[in-house]
């Protein structure tokens, strides 16, 4: 590999993993982290590396698989988004005490904004809570370097290391010259040591002491020490920045002409912050500005915050992404120079995302609303969250919560005597990820509701990664499969039927049948099975195409546009009637059964 390449941050980190001789990588997809594992699979194939690379069923499983490889002496990594780390926090916290053998990297990608997440939480705070050192890259290139540094740090101190990129690192592209790749020579060798690997609370006390000692030494480790960007600058005040905020700050200093006067320290290891650095800057500077996303982690570690301006002090906004124009305003205020007026925000209404034309979820939600018009509709994390536009989604909490929330609503209403219809929706990947334990719970507690598993044979929102039911894994390699119906039945569900939502009349009848069953008998599961329209990895047979047209029976009632909300159904203001946008219509033909006047009809090809 000798030529410069334009790499996505996630692909760059993936290259760092193979450069570092990482042998096992496991992940669950989630924006903005999804392309890390697919990147690893891509490099693994290109360099023909002996590695185990897998899409795990969820983040907890992914972390545990990678951690065990580290316990056996191999270099290993796991990648996830920040809310995925919540799911994996149990093994993460425990592994910090036990330590590692082979280098172990936990990549947790944050999403300040948030752009595509439930929260703006800061994974570095999780690292602090777990007492795990964390590295904070400012660019794809630095992220690649810090992957390698992270493994060195991990092995030097036998501790898990977190790499925390943000959306602007993961989904930025940069021209990079990647380093050489060589296959790892290591073989797995697990050395038994129950006092460490199976530590009971007594031993844990000692391990905690060891961890504190490690952290104290890590806070003086030279390779991750803060770097002064502009050594010539000698003002009595200074900026301390980490991550993308540091990249923005470098540019803002140049634009404001402060490059030669205002010192900018870049921190790549925000926790533990180097202890010598803390003492030095508090002695040296009268005034310190801390720029970081999204919480004040570095700021919290500055013992004397009397002269420190940051998130905790209220000088830097705590909500939202730190854009470069925000940072420009903050640095100008800190340096006491006039700031430019912020530009006027764009006018006009927004353009909200919507389910794709031909998406099978649209038909599912339409059927659910027909079958249980006054129902409560708990839902989950995935493309189908966009069912809110159709009025088919009432709650979205976190992965798998649709099932437990449906059970919770049932139990809460049952206390009052009258239970409404409850129809929950969950995607296939999300069902495997976190939907099975709550399904068992609902069966055991006799919670009566309908669960519709929206099985589009992919993890769609994050870019069409496989699910455990498909028979292929990362990089397209063959895997074994599990049977969704079999799992549902094994959980004790008595009603489990499968239908194709695109066959709207039959599917609506099926959901009605399930609703009737739930009213009188118990929990009912409907599997809505139809492939995702944008999934290019789908190899099976697609439903028949039905090209549609609008007949003269259209009386412009707008029912289809308002109730079915397909982007290909367009109301033409001039002609006062609905027309089909043939450029985006997928010929799914579902709208034929939506029009109350039967004015949408199948036409010849």
């Amino acid at each position, binding site marked *: 590999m000798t030529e*410069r390449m*334009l790499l996505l941050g996630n692909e760059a980190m993936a290259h760092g993993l193979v450069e570092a001789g990482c042998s096992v990588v496991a992940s669950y997809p989630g*924006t*903005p982290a*999804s392309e890390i594992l697919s990147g690893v699979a891509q490099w693994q194939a290109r360099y023909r590396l002996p590695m185990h690379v897998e899409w795990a069923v969820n983040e907890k499983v992914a972390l545990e698989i990678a951690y065990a490889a580290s316990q056996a002496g191999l270099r290993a990594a796991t990648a996830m988004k920040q809310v995925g780390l919540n799911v994996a926090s149990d093994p993460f916290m425990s592994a910090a005490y036990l330590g590692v053998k082979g280098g172990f990297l936990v990549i947790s990608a944050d999403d300040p904004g948030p*752009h*595509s997440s439930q929260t703006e939480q800061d994974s570095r705070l999780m690292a602090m809570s777990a007492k795990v050192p964390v590295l904070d890259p*400012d*660019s794809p290139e630095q992220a690649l370097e810090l992957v390698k540094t992270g493994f060195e740090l991990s092995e030097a101190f036998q501790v898990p290391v977190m790499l925390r990129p943000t*959306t*602007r690192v993961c*989904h*930025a*592209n*940069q*021209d990079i010259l990647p380093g050489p790749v060589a296959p790892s020579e290591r073989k797995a060798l697990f050395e038994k040591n129950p006092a460490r690997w199976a530590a009971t609370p007594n031993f844990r006390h000692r391990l905690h002491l060891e961890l504190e000692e490690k952290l104290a030494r890590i806070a003086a480790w030279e390779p991750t020490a803060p770097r002064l960007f502009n050594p010539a600058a000698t003002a009595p005040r200074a900026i301390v920045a980490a991550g*993308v905020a540091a*990249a*923005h700050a*470098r*540019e803002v200093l140049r634009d404001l002409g402060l490059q030669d006067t205002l010192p900018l320290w870049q921190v790549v290891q925000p926790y533990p912050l180097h202890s010598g650095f803390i003492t030095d800057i508090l002695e040296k500077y009268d005034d310190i500005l801390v720029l970081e996303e999204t919480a004040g982690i570095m700021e919290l570690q500055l013992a004397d915050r009397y002269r420190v301006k940051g998130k905790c002090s209220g000088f830097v906004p705590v909500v939202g992404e730190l*854009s*470069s*124009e925000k940072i*420009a305003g903050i640095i100008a205020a800190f340096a006491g120079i006039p700031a*430019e007026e*912020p*530009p*006027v*925000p*764009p*006018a*006009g*209404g*927004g*353009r*909200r*995302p*919507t*389910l*794709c034309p031909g998406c099978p979820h649209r038909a599912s939600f339409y059927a659910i609303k027909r079958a249980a018009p006054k129902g409560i509709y708990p839902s989950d994390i995935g*493309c189908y*969250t*966009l069912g809110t*536009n159709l009025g088919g989604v009432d709650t979205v909490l976190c992965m798998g919560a649709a099932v437990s929330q449906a059970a919770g609503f049932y139990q809460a209403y049952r206390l009052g005597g009258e239970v409404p219809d409850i129809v929950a929706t969950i995607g296939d990947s999300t069902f495997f990820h976190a939907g099975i334990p709550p399904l068992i719970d609902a069966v055991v507690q006799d919670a009566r509701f309908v669960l519709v598993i929206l099985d589009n044979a992919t993890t769609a*929102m*994050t*870019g069409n990664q496989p699910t455990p039911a498909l028979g292929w894994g990362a990089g397209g390699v063959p895997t074994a499969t599990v049977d969704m119906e079999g799992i549902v039945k094994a959980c004790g569900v008595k009603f489990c039927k499968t239908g194709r939502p695109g066959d709207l009349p039959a599917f609506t009848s099926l959901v009605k049948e399930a609703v009737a069953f739930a009213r009188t008998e118990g929990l009912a599961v409907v599997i809505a099975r139809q492939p995702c329209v944008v999934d290019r990895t789908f190899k099976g047979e697609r439903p028949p195409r039905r090209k549609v047209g609008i007949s003269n029976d259209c009386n412009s009632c*707008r029912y289809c*546009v*308002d109730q079915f*909300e397909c*982007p290909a*159904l*367009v*109301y033409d*203001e001039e002609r006062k009637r609905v027309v089909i946008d043939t450029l985006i219509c997928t010929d799914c033909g579902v709208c034929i059964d939506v029009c109350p006047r039967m004015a949408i009809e199948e036409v010849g090809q």
Partner: protein
Amino acid sequence: MSDTVTNILLVGVGGQGILLASEILSEAFMQAGFDVKKSEIHGMSQRGGSVVSHVRYGKEVHSPIVPEGEGDILFGFEIMETYRSLPLLKNGASVVANDLCIQPPSVLLGQETYPTDLPEKIAALFPKFLLVDGQGLAAEAGNVRAANTVLLGAVSKRLDIADECWIKALEKMVPRKALEVNLKAFQLGRSL
């Protein structure tokens, strides 16, 4: 090579192929020997929401995002999104936009109307505005789906990058079977 960083914004609706177009641009800048950074948001917005891609090149680029009010060139895939993004530009910036309206859900649902005077408004604010019949020229090149490449050609004319860098980038990023049509579409755009 001067210190200036050139800021390009690509805006449109999720699913229009903005990510690929920004990759081709970045590839061409890399071919020309520049430091390149590019940034956009993946995930939910790709399902028909507003999409903005930032591409920056120069001798040394630190930040991957174009600060508001600093854009040099706006590459619009859709008229309303082009108009919506004007505050990202500096005065005197160039705007190249496809003559295409995609109605957002609020318009489809009759809650709002799609304004019809946007090209005039854009031209009044940014005299260096070029409205391109992307679909029409793409059809002329052989495939209506090559509209983005027509636009890319028109944008390329406003950038000081050698012909061969563009050709190399297209050859690298466009599937072989679509290359001929795309090269033709690119030249049609470049002649505007």
